[in-house]
């Protein structure tokens, strides 16, 4: 169980982790498709690059974001003793 004086630092840490996970992801999610037209002139693996990045690329970025978040947040929980006891 978490100690009372650990709650504030724990929540500050969690908030920063939330921002660090979401802000870069949202920026990429919004900005990347807008440049797809220009990127389509290049190719990668035979795909038009803009299409590849908007479909497969964003998917990979989402996976990396969630994976990183799960890992980091678990580490934060354990660091502050906020994890579940089992």
């Amino acid at each position, binding site marked *: 169980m978490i100690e009372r004086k650990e709650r504030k630092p724990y929540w500050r840490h969690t908030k920063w982790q939330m921002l660090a*996970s979401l802000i870069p992801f949202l920026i990429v999610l919004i900005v990347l498709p807008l440049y797809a037209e220009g990127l389509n002139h290049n190719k990668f693996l035979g795909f038009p690059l803009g299409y590849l990045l908007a479909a497969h690329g964003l998917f990979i970025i989402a996976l990396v974001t969630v994976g990183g978040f799960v890992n980091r947040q678990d580490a934060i929980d354990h660091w502050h003793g906020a994890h579940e006891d089992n």
Partner: protein
Amino acid sequence: MTFTPRGRLINPRLGIFFGIFASGFISLVLLLLMFEQMGIPRHLLSPLMLAGALGAYLVIAFAGITREPIDFFAAGRRVPAVYCGLGIALSTMGATGMACVAGAYFLIGFDAIWIMSGGFAGYVVMAVLLAPFLRKFGAFTLPTYLGRRFDSLNVRIVSAALLAVPTLLVLAAEIGLGAKAVEWLLGRGQWLATAVMVLSVIGGLVFGGMRALTWSGVATGLAAILALIVPVTIVAVLLGYLPLPQLSHGPMIRGIGRSEAIAGIPIVLQTPLGLHLPFDGFQPVFKRIAEPFGAVGPVAYTLATLSVMMGVAAAPWVLPRIATTPGVYEARKALGWACVFFGAMMLTAITIAVFMRDYLMQAVGTSIAAPPDWLRTLVAGRLAEVSTRGNKIGAADIAFDRDSILMALPQAAGLPDVFASLAAIGILAAAFAAASAAALTLASMLSEDIVNGLNWQPPGASIRLTVVRVMLVVVVSFGGVIALMSNGDAFKLLLWALSLTASSAFPVLVASIWWKRVNQYGAFAGIVTGFSVAVLMILASEGGLIELSSVLSAVVAVPAGTFALISVSLLTLPPTRHSLELIRDVRVPGGEILYDREMRILRQKERRR
């Protein structure tokens, strides 16, 4: 010290059970393939396939029969992350997400990707902002959580009534699409197909609730993934691509681009806020496949992505499944798995659309007297229409049914008929999973938060379960009637549902965890404002009063709801001490599940009286 080992709660033989299911499903398909080669006609094989698959889902669902509320509403809180993720991925968008997205991608190309990226972005947002905290709270429905969190029966009842609307839209859309697949398999009328769909959803849920939904959801998930991936992989190998078509269809896209240039398909330009979605029914391809922003303008693309993202993140038919995971860590992981499965399914659907587009481009330019064989098969099977003006087939002369692209590819590639039936079974599986999820959510919201909602302490287990079971029957029948009467466009219904959840639930849910100052009045105002603005926007847009597409109604409604939430919260009294204590506990993963604690305290109070 309490010792609750995670390993003992989870059934260790889950992998074996679902391995048996998957191999049974594969052997059913192989058996029917052999029958087909022996000359047994399609109209006998398709019903066999339907009976086999639907029977297997229902047997698994019946095996989940229970008399415990914790099993009925939360599957006993012992669903491992992978299985939970698979269920979530399949039931978020269901058959709409497979059939309609593949069709939309086939017709408008790049401009349909926002549905996919909005979906997995929704999982990311859900995993970071909402899921772990809702799991720590452990409520069975969203309105219960909101009501308990703000300590207000008004919030509970009103949010249940308002969130029931998008859930009902999803239910009707999924029953409609599932009935379409059943109709195609059986070759009988729409009434019978809808009845089959309604009865199987009721039968699948009424005994086991969430427990049945979870485990039959895993089975339908496996079936849907196999049904999506197997035909397109075989087609890829036949056409000389690597058997990983999702990653190897790149050269094909560029080939299609070249033929499109030769065939003279125009490069259309859309206004920044314009949004043209393919409708339900037959229509020719609209634009070049890889050219962005011909049907959906760049600003509309971004806004639609964000709208779907917020809708998925707050979807009331998805979030309660978080409560089925064994812990907070697993809840986060489940969303990661959901992201994996959802992305894989969507990329496969897109690949199928690209392959189909390649077949289309081969037919363009051929003589009308001698069209390719596959086109004749599709026209005979009423999956495509050819309208002729000259003596050569142009790209605009072939119209395709938007929701049948998944079934069209195996036939176009000349695969045995069983593969087309397999695709229909996949659509049915996804529709079954999503319709069940929506139906269970709707029934538990209505019974827990409205019928039994006036009292915080739920009634005894048998009354509680009877009420929710009766509600299930009512709700699913009602959804079936709507699906039958309205004949609405399933794709639009889903997008409206996502807009409505985004505008009514998303701001409140996020604020309830990340902003301590929000109080019950703010929450109430936020939900009601967001919902009513979204409904008004949809009505105004469909009535032609405003230019903005009805799919984008969340663009105005979410800021309006957020503004109402913040201003009303700041203008009224700060939240009570009890709420603050509660939110402090919600934010920390360790410790007792809060819903269970609250119920225990209520019971103790009752006993003391």
